[in-house]
């Protein structure tokens, strides 16, 4: 069997753990071996896994903040332009534009744009929708959404060596360890 290297078109070495606690215990051990390109695949978001994996918190909030700010100011600008510039019409003796009566719509538009920003921002950062991903080549990939807790050492890791990764995963207690093609 030829030695598998990262040029062989591999995605990762993947192993399955029986529950979330085993997975959480295994990750630091794998990291101590020097691997950094790790991805855990789990049926639900596991509390504290980001700290164990050593990843930075999501920056999605800043994007959503900008969306909300845009929605809010766009609403105010439009209400001013429509009511005081484009079609000035006095109704009920009220001023053509005032901040007070614009608040409800400014607020609603802020929320609307933030909501679109959260969903589309999340999909964008996660590169979804995606038609194909190598993890689905793993023979037990269908269990990720059921009760499988997988850990992948990705081939893009500078230290990646298929055989060593398989051994490392087996040593920390993973079952069904496989080298998965791209």
């Amino acid at each position: 069997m030829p030695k598998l290297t990262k040029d062989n078109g591999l995605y990762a070495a993947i192993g399955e753990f029986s529950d979330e606690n085993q997975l959480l215990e295994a990750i630091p051990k794998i990291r101590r071996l020097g691997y950094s390109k790790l991805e855990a695949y789990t049926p639900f978001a596991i509390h504290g896994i980001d700290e164990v994996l050593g990843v930075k918190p999501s920056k999605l909030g800043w994007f959503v903040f900008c969306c909300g700010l845009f929605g809010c100011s766009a609403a105010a600008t439009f209400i001013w332009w429509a009511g005081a510039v484009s079609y000035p019409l006095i109704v009920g003796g009220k001023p053509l534009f005032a901040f007070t009566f614009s608040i409800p719509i400014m607020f609603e538009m802020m929320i609307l744009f933030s909501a679109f920003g959260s969903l589309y921002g999340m999909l964008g950062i996660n590169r979804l929708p995606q038609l194909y991903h190598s993890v689905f080549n793993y023979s037990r990939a269908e269990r990720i959404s059921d009760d499988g807790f997988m850990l992948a050492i990705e081939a893009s890791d500078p230290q990646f060596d298929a055989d060593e990764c398989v051994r490392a995963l087996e040593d920390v207690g993973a079952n069904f360890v496989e080298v998965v093609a791209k």
Partner: protein
Amino acid sequence: MAELAKTDLANLIREECNPPMLEGDMSYHDITEQISSLTEWKKTPRAWWVMISITGTLLLLLFACLTYLVARGIGVWGNNSPAGWAWDITNFVWWIGIGHAGTLISAILFLLRQKWRTAINRAAEAMTIFAVACAAIFPLFHTGRPWRAIYWLFPIPNTYLHMWQNYRSPLEWDVFAVSTYGTVSVLFWYTGLIPDLAVLRDRSKPGLRKIIYGALSLGWRGGSTHWKHYEKAYMILAGISTPLVLSVHTIVSFDFAVSVIPGWHTTVFPPYFVGGAVFSGFAMVMTLLLLTRWLLKLENIITIRHLDLMNKVILATGTIVGYSYATEFYIAWYSGDPYERFTFFNRITGPYWWAWWTMTICNCVIPQFFWVKKMRRNIAVMFIISITTNIGMWFERFVIIVLSLHRDFLPSSWGMFHPTWIDIGTYLGTFGLFLTLYLLFTKFCPIIAIGEVKSTLSAQNHVEHVYQHYLATHEVEAQSPHA
């Protein structure tokens, strides 16, 4: 003695922080199986087919009534002068209010870290969307020409109006509030659904079903990077939905409060409307969940404990509603305004006295039974109270709208409102729409948030583990988790 106190403390912490929410010994796989098998057609209970034929018939009634209305004009409704707003706006406010419980459960309880919400949030969110759809029908068809309404309601450039909407009007604020609410509810619901649609995708055999769920789940793979951004998006959506849900019924209440009609022109309306909305919404969630739980055998996931907690919310919000009625009355008297005083006196003793009394008994008196734990845990009692609450809250909107309009300042312009068959048919028809959509939802989507229930189970197992460890190290006897 000190040892005993320590054990009590451990039990208390376990009960308070993480009460057992799933009954029976369930594994993650059992949860996947139980919930996703509900979407498989071969296991459809016969009662489901019976129900959907009834609700489908009601839906046809809605189509018939709306077609007749469009063909003949809105004169086919009983609305008249002085009651220019009647059943249509009553139904609109009622349906919108019902939606509020869904957002409250999915957003506010999420921010408050109430783990028990995971069993009911998906169904409640779906209910919100369907309730908003029912609500939107009424103002839309009240315009008489719904196909043109888009130009009247939204600032869409067009060639026949040559003007813009009046942004000083609460009615225009309402357009933005309700449409934003509907849209954000759909986005929030869909965000929650993505990982669960992936569950259905992974379970399906290759074929059309797999393609559809595959497309809808957008290639979700449950990686830790995915979850990280997903959790953030979910939290932000919960964070923005919370002020949104409070704003929607606030703005709906502005439709009334900003006018000068006695009985409408009051500053208590925003909190009063929001409280009432949550109250009626929880009652509707309760009605639906009791039926769903029975129909789809979900007693182990939607437990008596969940229902008990929901009944506490009904009790609390019902009491807020009662307090609001009292405040309204007190202010009417204290204002010294004869018209204001008359309006409230007329509500109790006028020709619509029965509407006011129905409202008061259903909303202020009947939910008080929930102070008793036995009542909060009795299925029959809570089903009846959920229905009476829905009735009471419909009458509340009727009292506010029709009873304020039918006798205003000038006795010469007083009148009465009588619903027509089209009024009644349209209202019944919206139940057809609401329930048909809900029944279809139970068949096509996971009606319980699979991922979230699994994470609740994980937390439950964790606490149980710590508890068992504590007992082992302190050599004391374990207590039953349901004690």
